[in-house]
């Protein structure tokens, strides 16, 4: 190991972890990046840390909890309770566990009748949802975030690197059959495709591919829409090419939850420009400023 690196000092494990999670300020991140480029010891340590974490995660996630309730039933129960919370007079009432504990029996009886009625309506509603969409997954269709099981993101090496080649995001090159397939797996009618952008979760400019696992219908009329996501993509591309973050970090950030990534990298709670199609006028006013 070069004496030079020793003199400058190695990066602590703590800083390596924070660096990977993009929690270091820009200057420190720069230093870590520069050091890692030269120091094999720290590079190897970082690799060990990440590998141990990922092995542990795999092992840990194998632990399942044997719940007596099926997920679909639990979901219906939750829908029913939300409906009850909403329609109750005076807005928000005390909720389920407190309902069980009600001392007043007549009250409890009334609450139970209402709950059952609402659960019935919720079931019909759920049924409707399912028949409309053909698939239970579609109960969360058309959200600004894709479903991780359908659209986890897909990447490939870009010849020449993303900074030189700067691949463009061009959904029009995606064959119609594949576009239709994306809408179908999200349980949506392709005739409404005009209200959505068929968007890449990981943009080609960050190494994302046209694979179906990297595509989802992103609604335009949402506060967090495709135009807002484009800003994040531009920023991440710049940050990667100026060496502020590495490509896997950018890919992970945008694939995990691009809205959170936007908030983090732009340090804001709301979309910065007036692209947002929020129905809240106040929101728009603040966002535009």
């Amino acid at each position, binding site marked *: 190991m070069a004496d030079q690196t020793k003199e400058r000092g190695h990066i*602590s*494990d*703590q*800083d390596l*972890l*924070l660096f990977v*999670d993009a*929690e270091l300020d820009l200057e420190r991140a720069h230093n870590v990046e520069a050091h890692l480029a030269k120091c094999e010891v720290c590079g190897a340590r970082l690799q060990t*840390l990440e590998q*141990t*974490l990922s*092995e*542990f*995660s*795999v*092992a*840990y*996630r*194998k*632990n*399942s*909890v*044997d*719940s*007596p*309730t099926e*997920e679909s039933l*639990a*979901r219906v*129960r*939750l*829908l029913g*309770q*939300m*409906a009850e*919370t*909403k*329609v109750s007079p005076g807005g*928000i009432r005390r*909720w*389920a*566990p407190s309902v069980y504990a009600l001392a007043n029996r007549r009250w409890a009886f009334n609450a139970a009748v209402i709950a059952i009625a609402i659960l019935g*309506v919720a079931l019909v509603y759920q049924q*409707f*949802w399912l028949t*409309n969409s053909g698939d239970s997954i579609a*109960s*969360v269709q*058309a*959200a600004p975030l894709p479903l991780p099981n359908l659209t986890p993101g897909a990447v490939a090496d870009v010849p020449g690197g993303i900074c030189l080649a700067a691949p463009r995001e061009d959904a029009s090159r995606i064959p119609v059959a594949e576009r239709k397939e994306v809408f179908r797996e999200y349980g949506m009618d392709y005739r409404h495709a005009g*209200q959505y952008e068929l968007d890449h979760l990981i943009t080609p400019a960050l190494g994302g591919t046209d694979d179906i696992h990297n595509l989802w219908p992103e*609604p335009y*009329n*949402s506060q967090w829409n495709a135009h807002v996501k484009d800003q994040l993509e531009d920023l991440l591309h710049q940050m990667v090419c100026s060496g502020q973050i590495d490509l896997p970090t950018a890919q992970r950030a945008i694939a*995990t*939850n691009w809205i*959170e990534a936007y*908030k983090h990298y732009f340090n804001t*709670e709301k979309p910065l420009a007036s692209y947002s199609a929020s*129905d809240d006028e106040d929101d728009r006013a603040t966002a535009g400023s």
Partner: protein
Amino acid sequence: MASSANENALRLALFGRAETALGGVDLTPEREVIALFDQLRTPLLRYTASLGVTACDGEDLIQEVFLSLFRHLQLGKPRSHLRGWLFRVAHNLALKYRNTRAKRQAVTVSEPGLAERQIDPETNPEERVVEDQRQRLLMSVLEALPEQDQNCLRLRAEGLRYREIADVLGMSLGAVSNSLVRSLARLNRADAR
């Protein structure tokens, strides 16, 4: 179009909320809650089980967590970091549950830290044994760690960012990375043996 109009009418009847002009594609609090529920029910059940909540009570607890999320969204409170928010509420409810139960039972029965492991019948038995031994080893190292360190590691394994973990457990970012570095060193040593 007719079906989406129907759906809207039903939703209006149910939730009393009109959709935006384009019809049925905006994110209602209900949808947001259900989307997060589908995504995080299992991780949250696993986390509360690790804090000593039985699967049965865990299910009730998770319902409570998502109902408070629903109220949170209805009141127009901040929508950022909802994943961390959910884990924090689950964490606090689990601790409350643990305290009341400890009080009710004169003797505290030690809770198995982790629920049953899923067995994949597809893998070949020998591979499974080797794989399982390694994973059991990692889990036994986990269970020997101080509780705070365990929680940090578990939350990271569920994919939370360090910032979110700090928020859930009421620690500083530095304390989270210290804790993880400690735990990773232990895991690594066990692995090397």
